[in-house]
């Protein structure tokens, strides 16, 4: 009985010592702003911008508001941030890279750089969806320090009289990653004791 109790204590201690600190997703509030998202559009449209956090995901919504001719028409950019592992998985990513290289053996490196852009630690495009109800596509990346996953999705269906406002998702993802790295570096300079992230697995 005593041995069981000790075992339980050790197990609890182990759990406590390995638990990751609660991620402060709000660090992205000063990075993913309405202004930043707007800067990734070629037409700089007026956007309705909101942010909220739910179930471990911080969400930034940018809606291009236009006069709808039918319900269901929309233009929506969604940026979600979660701790690393929330949207991406390194082994699954490697498998995806290998499969894509096999499936698209006729394509050049430009194509693969597009499918797996050099953003953050690693990045990949999401499979698109398309139909009479609209379409969506996106991309996700892991931050350079391996701490967070960021997912960007564009979902749209526009009436004839509304021109596409020209959102460049890759440009937006790159801007988020660059800003995040800049903030991290600033933070590291202030705290020299900060441990360097472990990049050994890549």
């Amino acid at each position: 009985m005593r041995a069981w109790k000790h075992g339980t204590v050790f197990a609890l201690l182990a759990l406590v010592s390995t638990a990751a600190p609660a991620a402060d997703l709000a660090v992205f509030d000063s990075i993913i702003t309405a202004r930043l998202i707007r800067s990734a559009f070629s037409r700089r449209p007026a956007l309705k911008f909101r942010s909220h956090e739910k179930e471990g995901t911080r969400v930034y919504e940018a809606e291009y508001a236009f006069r709808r001719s039918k319900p269901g028409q929309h233009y929506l950019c969604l940026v979600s941030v979660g701790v690393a592992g929330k949207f991406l998985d390194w082994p699954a990513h490697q498998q995806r890279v290998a499969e894509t290289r096999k499936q698209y053996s006729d394509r050049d490196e430009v194509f693969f750089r597009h499918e797996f852009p050099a953003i953050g630690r690693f990045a990949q495009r999401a499979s698109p969806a398309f139909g009479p109800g609209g379409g969506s596509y996106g991309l996700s990346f892991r931050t350079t320090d391996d701490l967070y996953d960021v997912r960007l999705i564009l979902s749209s269906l526009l009436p004839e009289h509304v021109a596409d406002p020209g959102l460049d998702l890759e440009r937006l993802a790159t801007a988020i990653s660059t800003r995040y790295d800049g903030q991290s570096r600033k933070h590291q300079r202030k705290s020299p004791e900060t441990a360097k992230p472990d990049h050994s697995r890549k």
Partner: protein
Amino acid sequence: MADDYLAQLTEEQVAAWYGRLADVISKKKVSGSEPFAATLMKTYLRNRDPKATCEFDAPDHLKSLSYVLGVQKFHRDVFLTKQKGSFSGSEKWVGVLPRIQGWSGFTKWNLSSTLDLTYESLVEVGSGYADLVRIQLSGTDQERDIFASLRGFQLKSAVKVVGAKASASKVKIIFQSWSCSASDRYDFDYSEHLKMPNPDYGSKAKDAVRPGDESIEVYHKNAKRIEDKGLAAPFDVAIKPWIVTDASLLRAEEIDPARKLR
């Protein structure tokens, strides 16, 4: 539309490009199968008769879709006369109670025989802004697939019920069987458009469309062009009946046969 590059192509080239887009969409499996969005698009490109009804087995992820379960629960309430059914914009009581009470317009039901009931209503996936955001943010691949492929569709429930006296004032309604089917129209609104990743990006194929462009603006007026040329056609989607086995839908329920309906 200066960015309508598909407009510069022949109808044959447009249809082939749509086919390659469907191939890209079909690469990511949903519940182990080809996404329904890709299946429907390929059918659209194969079809030549706009009056055709094309039948499909119900995808597993449609049968288990939370939106479907929500509508099935509503159908159950309509069958049990707990909620009014909607008929061409007007609401009225239907289901077991008007039949038990022998209302005019209903065949009196004496509980001893099996009663067949059917009811049909709309399932809307991502109908409002909030729901659309939820699907794109935290929705499953299955929800996103149905959202893109069908979005809204008619769901029909057909049930067989029997009744039995449970007590002096209660009747027990037992669902003997329940099957569902779904229907929709697969067609594009020619006045709409959207940007999609270009399936030909980086391709060296001779027939590749703008291989230097990562994305292409897809104006659905090009869908009309290929339809007019006989290279595709909209169609009625008929999803074959499937057996409903959800215990929460099939559970027996006691009702008051004398309840006054208002």
